[in-house]
């Protein structure tokens, strides 16, 4: 229990710092690709986490990002929406006999297809909300849509990369 909390806390700190100190300062393709890797810390939260806790954690994580980027409410809203979607996603993607006690939202545990679906959809939701709230208007929607999609694919790619790089568990047989 304590180990799980510390694990998630460490992941949160590392990813937030990576995001604010490095990724936020990397300008790929003139603002068309803006990865938000920090959402991985939310995506990898324990599966059995109750929704209310997930919502609070999402809001809090977003608020920290908002503090760093001085965008009050922007990341907080996007993350809250994403965490609500996460509950629906987990229900939709659940195996027939339900989640195992040791199941965690990782490639090694759940498989590549499961994780790509899970993370891909949630990242897209997060980025769509984020990018549309950021420009704060619907005019020029195709541009914003393209930016959100481009960034979402970059974020997903980074998430996969991070998971593949740091996963220590052996693949399940």
């Amino acid at each position, binding site marked *: 229990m304590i180990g799980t909390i510390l694990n998630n806390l460490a992941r949160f700190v590392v990813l937030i710092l990576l995001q604010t100190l490095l990724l936020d300062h990397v300008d790929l393709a003139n603002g068309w690709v803006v990865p938000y890797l920090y959402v991985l810390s939310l995506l990898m939260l324990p599966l059995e986490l109750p929704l209310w806790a997930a*919502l609070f954690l999402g809001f809090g994580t977003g608020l920290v990002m908002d503090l760093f980027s001085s965008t009050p409410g922007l990341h907080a809203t996007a993350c809250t929406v994403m965490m609500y979607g996460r509950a629906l996603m987990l229900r939709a993607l659940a195996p027939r006999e339900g989640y195992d006690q040791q199941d965690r939202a990782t490639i090694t545990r759940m498989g590549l297809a499961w994780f790509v679906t899970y993370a891909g959809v949630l990242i897209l939701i997060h980025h769509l909300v984020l990018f549309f709230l950021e420009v704060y208007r619907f005019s020029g929607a195709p541009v914003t849509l393209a930016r959100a999609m481009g960034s979402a694919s970059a974020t997903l790619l980074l998430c996969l990369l991070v998971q593949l790089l740091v996963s220590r568990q052996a693949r399940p047989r």
Partner: protein
Amino acid sequence: MRDLFRFLFRQRDNLLFLLLLGLGLSMLIRGNMHQRAEWVSTSNAAIGEVYALRNDVVAYTDLRVGNIALNEALARERERASSIVERHDSGAVRTDTLRHIRYRYRAAQAINSTTHKAKNYLTLDKGTLDGVDRNMGVIGANGIVGVVREASPHFASVISVLNEDHVASAQIRSTGHFGLLRWDTRDPRTVSLADIDKHVPVSVGDTVVTRGSEGVYPPGILVGVIESVTEDPGIPFHLIVVRLSEDLTRADHVQVVSDLMKAERDSLEASAPRE
């Protein structure tokens, strides 16, 4: 009433979601309207430290570019300053309104240098294509560095001050007495100043500057300060050791000085009858 509470309890997650969503959106809207500045100032007090830390690290990567820019600015300033100061002939200082330039300073970078051999050289990243040519003086931000020995189109080889072959005339700034600078101390931080007569009062700490008589360095460029003065009964001169103001072991951004009137002066001195 109980049904209402039961309903609320059953829907608590959804209600929490709506609550947080509303909170986030209201922050967003207020922030977008007018209160952004207030939020930014409070947030920066907390977050600023983290960004300051980051800047401490990242600033190093910008130093290279910054140093080059500073060196070029220094070269321009020196050019401006020397073109005004040089014109105090006939007793009165004449302000040169035409900005007649006597010395040209070109910024360059030492891409290779030695300091611990008997004959030390530097290599600069500028050559004849940039106007660098042999017998031009090379100075750093704090003092003299050497003399260009050879120049290819893109590079220049410089005889360091720390080289037995490097000879330059220098004078003690306070008294004006001059002698020859030579590197026979075998110490990369000092040179010796020879040929200063024993009757001349010399004290430790005096500033030594270039004299500019051989047309390599402009006059008045800092060499260093006198570190020690010793006497040898057999020699009519002081034995003066000068601590170099430029740290040759670190000289990196330098400037190449060319005297634009050198050709005129050389031809005059060649044609004037000796004796």
